[in-house]
Structure formats: C-alpha cells, structure tokens
C-alpha cells in the first residue's frame, strides 16, 4: 500500500512566515528602497543610486562610530565570556546555594534596558550616586559627563553588570548537563583541575558558549538604550556607537536615505561577523565530536 504524504502541517508554520514577513522582510525591503533614494517626507522620493552608500562608506563619522563599536564589543566579549565561565564554574551544582545563585544571576536580566541606564546614571553621579560619591570621597577623579575615559568605563561596567549573567546561566546549563561519570573517570585518571576544564567542561560547554558569544556579540554590537540614557553618546562623541549615530541620522536629522544605507552596511557587518563566529565554533564543535 502506498503511503500518503500529508503536507497540511505546513499551514502550522504559516503564522511564523507572516510574522517574519511583517516584522523583518517588509521593513528590510523598505530600507533597501530608501537607501537608493532621497526623501523629503510626504511620500516623495528621488532616485540617487549608490550616492548614499558612497557617502557613508567614506564618511569620517561612520568610520569613527564603527571603530568605537568594534572596540566596545571586543572589550565586552573579552570580559564577559571568561568572567561568565569563571562564575559558572564557581557556582554550586545542587542544594539551596544553587537556587540562590541562580536567582541572583537572573536579577539583572529582568531589568529593562532603560531602567539599567537610569540606575547607572544615578549610581555614578558624584552628588547623589553611591559610586560617584564613594570615588570622590576616596579622592578618585571621576566624571562620566566630562571625561571620555570615565564614560567608557561606566558604559562597560554597566554592560558587564547587566549581561554577564546571561553568559553565566548558559554556561551553567552546559556544565549541569555533564554526566557525573566524566568527573569520576577524570578523578581515577588523576586529572588536574585545569585538565578537567580543558578536556571535559570546556568541550561540553561549546554549544552554549556559541550561543553566548553570538548573543553577546549581536547585543553589544547593536547596543543603544543603556549608553544613550547614561551618556547620550558623549562627552562629545566618545560613546556614540553605531546605533546611536544611526538614530541621530534617521530621526534627529531625518536623513532617511543615508540612514538606510548606514543600516544596510551595519546589518551586513553584523551578519558577516555572526556567520564567522557560528561557522568557526560549529566547525570546532564538529572536530571535538
């Protein structure tokens, strides 16, 4: 008897297609359309070809914002990934301590981005903030509204405070999935603490680390709300990252054409780096078995 193939299940994914269509594909199409035209509002468009792309690619403003963004993301990944692994390794695996640690780790993730920005903006102020006041009392010169270095330190520490928990929770989940037999075998072989990490824990965390690196790269590369609330992109343009610059261009100046070209270049960079991360880490995962 010939088996009948039922294709009706495809209708179940139709809502997802519609959702992605309305939330991603149609806006992306619109951005592509805007990137080759000039507009003064009221639905009037004038063809300019690749002019906006050439302008953005050669603009000092874009280069500076991209440089700041790459530096910020590199610092964030260099701090949050090792720190997240270290904290996850230090957390208890069972008992009441594990529950308390998990709740504490989850707390920063529950706070909305703009609230995190507001908390840190107040926290770092010299007159009313605990951090700013304490540093001033210790004789440390710290003013994130006037010093570019202080503004960078504040934004980085804030991001580390907000997002390291995500890396911790992902790594912790990876660690918890390792069967006890692996550790027992390592103990019998007399493996050192480093050998256990290098040959058991790290390979087993590979997949979750891939997710952590990808999420943290994409999030930090597209960061907007927190630095905008704390520093507004300043002092000067010291913390004007790509998304802050893009919003200034698109909404502040209503340069929708250049902003659309900017967005597409920005999107392609995110896509390329994410693909490279994904490919390198999955290839390494495949080799590790």
């Amino acid at each position, binding site marked *: 008897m010939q088996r009948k193939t039922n294709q009706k299940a495809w209708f179940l994914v139709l809502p997802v297609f519609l959702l992605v269509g309305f939330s991603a594909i149609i806006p992306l199409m619109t951005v592509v359309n805007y990137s080759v*035209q000039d507009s003064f509002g009221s*639905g009037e468009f004038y063809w300019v070809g690749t002019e906006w792309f050439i302008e953005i690619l050669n603009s000092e403003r874009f280069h500076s914002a991209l440089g700041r963004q790459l530096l910020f993301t590199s610092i964030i990944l260099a701090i949050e990934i090792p720190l997240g692994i270290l904290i996850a390794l230090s957390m208890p695996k069972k008992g009441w301590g594990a529950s308390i640690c998990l709740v504490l780790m989850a707390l920063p993730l529950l706070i909305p981005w703009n609230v995190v920005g507001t908390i840190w903006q107040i926290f770092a102020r010299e007159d009313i903030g605990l951090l700013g006041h304490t540093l001033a009392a210790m004789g440390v010169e710290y003013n994130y509204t006037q010093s570019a270095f202080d503004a960078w330190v504040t934004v980085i520490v804030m991001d580390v405070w907000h997002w390291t928990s995500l890396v911790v929770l992902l790594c912790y989940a990876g660690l918890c999935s390792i069967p006890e037999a692996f550790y027992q075998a390592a103990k019998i072989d007399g493996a050192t603490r480093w050998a256990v990490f290098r040959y058991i824990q790290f390979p087993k965390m590979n997949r979750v680390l891939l997710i952590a690196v990808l999420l943290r790269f994409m999030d930090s590369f597209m960061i907007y709300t927190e630095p905008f609330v704390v520093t507004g992109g300043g002092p000067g343009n010291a913390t004007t990252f790509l998304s802050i610059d893009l919003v200034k261009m698109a909404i502040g100046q209503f340069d929708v054409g250049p902003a659309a070209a900017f967005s597409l270049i920005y999107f392609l960079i995110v896509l390329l780096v994410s693909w490279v991360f994904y490919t390198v880490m999955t290839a390494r995962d495949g080799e590790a078995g």
Partner: protein
Amino acid sequence: MDLSWMGWTPFTATFFVVIASLIVSMLVWEKLVPGGAPRDGILGFETTRGDRLFVSLLGSAFIHIGWLFFIGDMLWWALILSFFYALAVFRWV
C-alpha cells in the same frame, strides 16, 4: 493597497525578484536532488547548497560595498565579479 510609503523603484523590485527567484530555484533543486549535496570544500568545513548560496550572496554584498569604497560607481563590474565569485563558491567551497 497603497504601498507608496515603501518607495519602490524598478531596480529594487528587480533586486528582490532575483533574490526570491534564487530561493525558489534552490527549493526546486532540493526537490529534484534531495540532501543538499554536503561536502568539505576549500574552507575546510562542510557546506550544503544553501550554505554556498548564503556565502555567495554575503560575499557579493561585500564585493559591491568594497567596490563602492575603493573604486566608486560603475557597479556592473562588481556584479560581474560577484557572478564569478559565486561560480567559484559553488565549485570549490
């Protein structure tokens, strides 16, 4: 339905029709020759037909961006270069 807010032009519409056609062609290809033809290419990792199309499209986008940055207008040459790049990707990657 008024879609004037999307600012469509014949060129951008052609661009999306080409992308959609490529995706549909890949679906037809998969239907005719199932399995995605996975292989280890010169990049040293396994790729399927879909991966090779993605690498071709992403690379082509950067070829165009690089062309605009280093040379300027006249994107036809970048398009021709991208075509040969895509052929190379499908042959060796």
